[in-house]
């Protein structure tokens, strides 16, 4: 795409400033203009197709049922390039594929990813992210499962990670499954024969709630009641069990299961069915398929909105950005700023993007390996969990993560009401995304299939294996200045020395994850500025490329009720629609991912009265909800 005159002017000014100072070090509103310039630069220079180029031919006619509905496998979103973003299609790159160098031994193990895990990642003490609640951690995993998965690999195709003598890992060397190119015919023969391959996404690339709805017609048939458009859910309001895996729920994507995911899947399954109810009432003659398709569109758009206007502002809570939200900048600075702000999260302007023409900026919309890399946020997960009873506000149990995850999930949840679990996540903090805060439990994580893995080792190894550059090279690719020394990387002196030791004084060897977890964060940020660069590029693409968020975000496709549903609801509304008893804890909260109100504890004497007042308020809310529904 040719950049506009103003875009080039911005680039000219800010590329010079940014060699010394980053956007967040500049005063508002200069910082905002700087961000805009960065986004324009990234879009011009950091979008690359891999094997398959964008097919820019004439529009084709989809099967009629997919003109106004999402395809289970993500086909026919773009009518010129129907395969774009579909299940199994390759991840693209934010870096010129000619410069991608998947690492091989000895470089692959220099230093050993396990050493990085143990010496730099291991949680010494739990460092909370005090401006967020655990629901924010569950949410991002929920969304990652919507966006991407590289598959499980093959047991006989492994990498061997060298271990230090003192390592207590149960096998030497550690075996980690390779990422398998999916499908295999995507192998790329580059001119210099670096053996780079395209990896496929087992999920659709679209923001289509495939974690809930699955990625094939077969998945959907198993999940649907095939009546009134609804998804299956038990009488007691719980998801059904997965017949093939003990302790895990039946839903679109149930890898890496734990109660937080289960709660969100339950909530949005119920939301889907609630949307079906309303659509059915308004369109009594609609058949099951049409109700299902429309509710799917509405539900997935609502999730995209919640992510954009709630989760994101929660985790990148920068005053310079958010003060811009209230000002009428879009009028002064035009569509570019409007897009930028919208992507960052004001609901009104979000609606502005929604319904504008689709645009891919001349590279196929597919998620990128780099996007996957910056969403590695395992430090969000606590090791030790406190579980409360909503009604009394009392701490009920303290548990370790293993007791409430994988095959233990359903059994654990049977002992609680779902609102208790939401409340427990709502009031407690997730871990901060920094060094020395990796959940110990995930460094020796037993998968449901019995495989034991160190996810911290995996997080490091995956980037190396897939040719995502190490930190300094990555920054250069994102046109950020390289850091020159360990001192410059992190203001934490002890970390600087530890990183120096692990990487043998070579700043250029520092892994992307380590650099992102070590670097100083912009004010209000829950993750790194380096990660943010990929985010500001890709987050807007996820909306701007999707026909159902742009050209076809219109009443004829969604119904007016559906459009209104997306525009008028936020996470809090969804939670309270299905669990109104949470009202006291969420009352007045501007954002459901910020820590909720703690209810007074019963144990302190006036708990009984508090419990009564909560009950009264809950009853009031229930009556109000009934009145609205009637």
């Amino acid at each position, binding site marked *: 795409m040719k950049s506009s005159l103003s875009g080039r002017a911005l680039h000219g000014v800010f590329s010079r400033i940014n060699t010394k100072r980053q956007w967040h070090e500049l005063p508002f509103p200069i910082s905002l203009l700087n961000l805009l310039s960065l986004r324009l630069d990234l879009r011009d220079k950091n979008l690359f197709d891999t094997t398959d180029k964008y097919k820019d031919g004439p529009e084709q006619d989809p099967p009629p049922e997919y003109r106004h509905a999402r395809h289970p496998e993500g086909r026919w979103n773009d009518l010129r390039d129907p395969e774009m973003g579909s299940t199994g299609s390759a991840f693209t790159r934010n870096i010129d594929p000619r410069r991608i160098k998947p690492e091989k031994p000895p470089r692959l193990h220099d230093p050993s990813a396990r050493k990085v895990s143990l010496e730099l990642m291991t949680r010494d003490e739990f460092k909370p992210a005090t401006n967020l609640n655990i629901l924010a951690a569950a949410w991002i995993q929920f969304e990652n499962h919507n966006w991407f998965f590289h598959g499980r690999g093959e047991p006989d195709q492994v990498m061997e990670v060298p271990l230090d003598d003192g390592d207590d890992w149960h096998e030497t060397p550690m075996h980690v499954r390779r990422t398998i190119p999916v499908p295999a015919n995507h192998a790329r023969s580059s001119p210099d024969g670096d053996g780079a391959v395209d990896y496929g996404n087992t999920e659709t690339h679209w923001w289509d709630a495939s974690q809930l709805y699955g990625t094939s017609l077969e998945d959907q048939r198993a999940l649907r009641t095939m009546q009134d458009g609804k998804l299956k859910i038990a009488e007691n309001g719980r998801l059904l069990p997965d017949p093939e895996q003990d302790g895990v729920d039946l839903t679109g994507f149930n890898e890496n299961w734990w109660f937080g995911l289960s709660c969100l899947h339950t909530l949005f399954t119920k939301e889907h069915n609630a949307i079906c109810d309303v659509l059915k009432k308004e369109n009594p003659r609609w058949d099951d398929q049409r109700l299902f398709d429309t509710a799917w569109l509405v539900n997935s758009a609502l999730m995209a909105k919640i992510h954009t206007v709630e989760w994101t502002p929660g985790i990148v809570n920068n005053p310079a950005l958010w003060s811009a939200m209230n000002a009428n900048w879009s009028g002064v600075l035009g569509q570019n700023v409007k897009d930028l702000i919208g992507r960052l999260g004001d609901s009104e302007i979000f609606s502005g993007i929604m319904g504008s023409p689709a645009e891919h900026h001349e590279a196929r919309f597919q998620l990128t390996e780099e996007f996957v890399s910056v969403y590695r946020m395992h430090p969000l997960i606590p090791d030790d969990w406190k579980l409360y009873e909503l009604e009394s506000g009392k701490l009920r149990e303290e548990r370790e993560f293993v007791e409430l995850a994988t095959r233990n999930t359903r059994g654990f949840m049977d002992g609680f009401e779902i609102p208790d679990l939401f409340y427990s996540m709502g009031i407690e903090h997730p871990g901060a995304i920094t060094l020395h805060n990796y959940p110990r439990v995930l460094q020796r994580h037993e998968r449901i299939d019995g495989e034991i893995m160190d996810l911290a080792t995996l997080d490091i190894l995956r980037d190396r294996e897939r040719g995502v550059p190490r930190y300094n090279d990555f920054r250069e690719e994102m046109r950020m200045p390289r850091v020159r020394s360990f*001192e410059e990387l992190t203001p934490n*002196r002890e970390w600087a020395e530890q990183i120096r030791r692990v990487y043998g004084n070579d700043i250029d060897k520092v892994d992307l994850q380590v650099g992102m977890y070590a670097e100083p964060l912009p004010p209000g940020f829950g993750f790194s500025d380096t990660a943010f660069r990929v985010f500001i590029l890709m987050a807007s693409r996820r909306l701007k490329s999707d026909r159902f968020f742009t050209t076809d975000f219109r009443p004829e496709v969604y119904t007016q009720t559906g459009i209104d549903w997306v525009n008028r609801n936020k996470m809090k509304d969804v939670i309270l629609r299905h669990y109104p008893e949470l009202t006291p804890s969420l009352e007045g909260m501007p954002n459901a991912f910020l820590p909720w109100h703690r209810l007074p504890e019963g144990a302190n004497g006036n708990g009984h009265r508090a419990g009564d007042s909560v009950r009264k308020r809950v009853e009031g809310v229930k009556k109000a909800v009934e009145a609205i529904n009637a």
Partner: protein
Amino acid sequence: MSVSEATPQEADAASNGTAPSGGSGLPQASLPEGVKVVAAGLLPAVARGLFKPRRGMMKRLTAIDADRRTVETLSEIKRRHPGQGVRLLGGRMVVLWGADAIREVLDNSATTYASDAGAKKKGMEHFQPDALTISRGEEWRDRREFTEAVLATPERLHPFGQRFVEVVADEVERMRVSGTIEWSHWERLFDHVTLRVIFGDRARDDQELTGLLEKLMAEANRIAGLGESDDLHELHGRMEWHLRDPEPGSLVARFADAPQTDSTRVVHQIPHWIFAMRDTLGLNAFRALAAIVADPEVEKRVREEIEAADIASAGGIDGMPYLEGCLQEAMRLWPSTPLIARETTRATTLAGEQIDEGTQVMILNTFNHRDTGAVPDADRFVPERWHAGGRDHRFNHLSNGTQDCPGGPMVLLLGKAVLAQTLARWELTLCEPELEGGREMPHMLDFFSIRFDARRHP
């Protein structure tokens, strides 16, 4: 500033409360006296550049013979208050000249008497924020241990001494001289030697590294209004680059076996070695060379010692006591560290008297080294003075006590090697400045202006 640093002593002499012999504690000086000390003693030290000597200012201070004024002013005040020193400015500052009191302070340095205060700390933070010399307490012990291990402080001869001596011989041989040797030649010589000794032969031409440090140190002279400099990251990056694959025989190759923790901050310890070796030793050796050449008697004895020794070997260089005396004497006469400043970390007693926490304790080398009332032949160049060995706590160009210079033995080895190799190759005549051997030495010797006629020995 001081290039000095050492092992802390268990006993805190000050708190033991024994009043030192000789003199009557620390009398109070009058306000005019206090102003004089500040004007004549402290300001010139700051003006010449606390961290990086300023060429123009050195010339001007030399022209007015500023250090002579310092000595005269202090001598006058000492005559009136013949104790261990005086208190100034209502007790906020103490200036010491008694050997016992100086020893008391230096033996408890980095603990009771911290060196990480005031202008020194402010300035040094600009180019070496976690350096040993501005550390105290546990961090100081940690960094001192590391530094002593790398520099082999307890050993008279560094384990890599032979290589260092060979590096010096090679660099003196490669010095490009056409008829004269002046400061620019000398500075370049020491630049190459320093880079090779610390980082290895591959680093010989990394003048960007030493240039960055020079730039930062020149900025640090300002003391006030120093912001965090981007060049510091650049400097650290360049140093780290040399650490990636340490060259055998270099000081950085000793890092792997030196005791260290996360608070050692190994890279922060290197800049001090660079400027102590490159700048401080460089200018002191240049002055020593001038003093030697200026006095035919001294030069004759030095040349005899050179001829008798195997100057290609570290052992040979080590065994040159007269040359060593020359180097020490140059450092005594023209101390490149004009003053040592300490700040009390708690209320304590000094010279038997109570002093408050936060008292500034000044040891003015400029005066103490030239105190004609206490040092015999204070103004004369007397290398024999150093033959007896032992320490005189009034002479602090390498400091004394806990924070004495951990590079002391290396300084003497490298300095002697440069002088011996230079004199062995060249016949020198001192052209500038005027310096008469056997007479009283001037109080200032501007090393920037030193120039020799040089003829290669056949």
